[in-house]
């Protein structure tokens, strides 16, 4: 449960036995070929895996350096990497005899993914979402309800994602017997970061096979965006032991790493204890958790998964800040050069690839994870550019 000094289980006593049960059940499940087969079946026959590793010819030519490959998590059912993790956790919940899934959600993506898998498995589902977010994202609230789940608007705190996490954890505390809390990112108390790592590592396991088949060698760099860090840890996992592969996580710098309006946790944050884990957080000198900012709702989180904090300390992975402006430019760039509308989260990774590729040789290779599709972001990008898209 620890990654260097990070990780742990900083949760109320009420949850400790449940976490232990999850840990035990997960270790059993992990070693049970039947469970692994169940996960594999849903990943391949429902979530649409393996996802493509596609060569970005026009972008590689245009940037004139390294050859760029995209790992296309945007092509998964529900349109992002989130589904990989919820399939694993929901099947574990079912194996543990749970009949009810709860989850937090910010902009709604993890809520939709959780509600989706709950519908497929015939489980009850309740989603906690900050009231601010339910009002900004009414459509996603409706989408979650359409999938048969219930949405709880959270009215405490600043009524956004971290308050939704708080509320979901409280709700879980009050009803652990039949309920499994499906955590959406590589964060939270042990064993969640480990489970999310494992369930998302399918990204890099596939990518490694695919790039070896395509180029006969390992990539020189793997680039992924980092909020809580689940798509990044999934993209890095199979390459961590290959020290010749550079691993680069792209954090949301918002208006700039040096401004107040940023979410670049590893660069600007400090070690703390929050949401069940010791890790890096954006916080003030007292340890009060900061409100953070990014144009990307999926990266707008004041913490980061403990494994990323450890990888940063060990200098095994490098973390860079990408501003809103850079991300929006990249969002537009990949649409025009490759015909891909990528999530604004993923566009943070693409923005860094735009800087990195020209500094590399043509025989070098970058894998960039497109963590999700950007249809959800088109309206806000239009607004960012001052275009009226209200109907």
């Amino acid at each position, binding site marked *: 449960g620890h990654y260097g000094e990070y990780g*742990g*289980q*900083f*949760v*109320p*006593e*009420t*949850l*400790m*036995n*449940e976490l232990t049960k999850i840990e035990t059940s997960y270790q059993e499940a992990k070693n049970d070929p039947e469970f692994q087969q169940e996960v594999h079946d849903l990943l391949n026959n429902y979530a649409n895996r393996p996802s493509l590793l596609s060569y970005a010819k026009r972008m590689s030519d245009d940037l004139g350096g390294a050859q760029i490959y995209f790992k296309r998590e945007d092509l998964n059912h529900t349109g992002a990497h989130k589904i990989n993790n919820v399939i694993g956790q929901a099947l574990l919940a079912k194996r543990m005899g749970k009949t009810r899934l709860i989850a937090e959600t910010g902009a709604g993506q993890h809520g939709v993914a959780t509600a989706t898998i709950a519908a497929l498995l015939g489980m009850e589902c309740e989603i906690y979402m900050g009231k601010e977010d339910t009002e900004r994202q009414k459509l996603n609230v409706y989408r979650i309800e359409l999938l048969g789940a219930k949405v709880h608007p959270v009215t*405490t*705190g600043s009524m956004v994602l*971290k*308050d939704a*996490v*708080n509320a979901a*954890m*409280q*709700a879980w*505390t*009050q*009803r*652990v*017997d039949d309920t499994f809390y499906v955590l959406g990112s590589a964060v939270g108390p042990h064993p969640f970061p480990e489970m999310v790592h494992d369930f998302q590592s399918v990204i890099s396991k596939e990518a490694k096979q695919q790039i070896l088949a395509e180029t006969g060698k390992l990539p020189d760099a793997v680039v992924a965006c980092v909020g809580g860090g689940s798509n990044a840890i999934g993209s890095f996992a199979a390459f961590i032991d290959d020290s010749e592969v550079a691993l680069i996580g792209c954090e949301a710098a918002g208006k700039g790493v040096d401004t107040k309006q940023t979410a670049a946790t590893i660069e600007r944050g*400090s*070690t*703390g*204890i*929050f*949401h*069940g884990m*010791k890790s890096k*957080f954006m*916080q003030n*000198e*007292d*340890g*009060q*958790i900061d409100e953070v900012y990014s144009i990307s709702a999926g990266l707008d989180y004041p913490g980061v998964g403990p494994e990323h904090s450890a990888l940063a300390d060990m200098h095994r992975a490098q973390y860079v800040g990408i501003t809103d402006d850079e991300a929006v430019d990249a969002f537009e760039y990949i649409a025009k050069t490759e015909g891909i509308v990528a999530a604004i989260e993923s566009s943070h990774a693409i923005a860094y690839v735009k800087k990195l590729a020209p500094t590399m040789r043509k025989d070098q290779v970058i894998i960039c994870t497109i963590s999700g599709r950007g249809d959800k972001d088109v309206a806000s990008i239009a607004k960012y550019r001052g275009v009226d898209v209200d109907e």
Partner: protein
Amino acid sequence: MSRISNAFKKEKAFIGFVVAGDPDLKVTVENVLALEDGGADLVEIGIPFSDPVADGPVIQDADQRALNQNVNTEDVFELVRLIREQSDIPLVFLTYANLVFKSGYETFCKKCVDLEVSGMIIPDLPYEEQDDLLVVMEQNDLDLIQLITPTSKERIPKLAKRARGFIYVVSSMGITGTRNEFKEDISQLTNEIKKYTTVPIAIGFGIHTPIQAVEMSHLADGIIVGSEIVRIAHEDSPQRLMTYIQEMKDAIS
């Protein structure tokens, strides 16, 4: 430590909880004195935290109100200093792990000693994560209050054995059965705890009325009231708070 055991010396102990800085620092001082005047045996001083995940909405809102007034940890220390000018009542801090961690365990513990605060309740620091802090607390003769819940089960022995000061039994779990079943469950829990320790047991969470107080006090050495005090502190006066404590204390005496 001696101060905490004092709280349980007489009859059943009444433990009250306030959020430092709600409605403001000055009134919080008055409220703590009102608690003492009303008969409270020990007061938990809540240091407001941005994300109090283990607390219910009433306390969450109080924390938020305090933070909105820019109450910081240093202010809370100053508040305790003011209390200490007028009172010797046993005090513990209730706060979240990050505030103590960020302050530095050494620094925070030294401050407790200076302020004659006897211990800490840290709801998000379970048994497995306590080692680093415990070392420092023990060096400073401070008590880390263990929480035990109906879900603790086979964890009870180790929690009970580590307990110092008092044991905080968290009584309310969302989906409970009838009132009688509930009482029976708590009574089994406290009996189980007593097998492993002589440290006093206080029951908290969800106790608002004198009748509840009486029922719970039969099962333990003391009761803890949080939300209701916070509600009165927010909506009413120190005088009303004192009257409420008197009613509750009378009920369990």
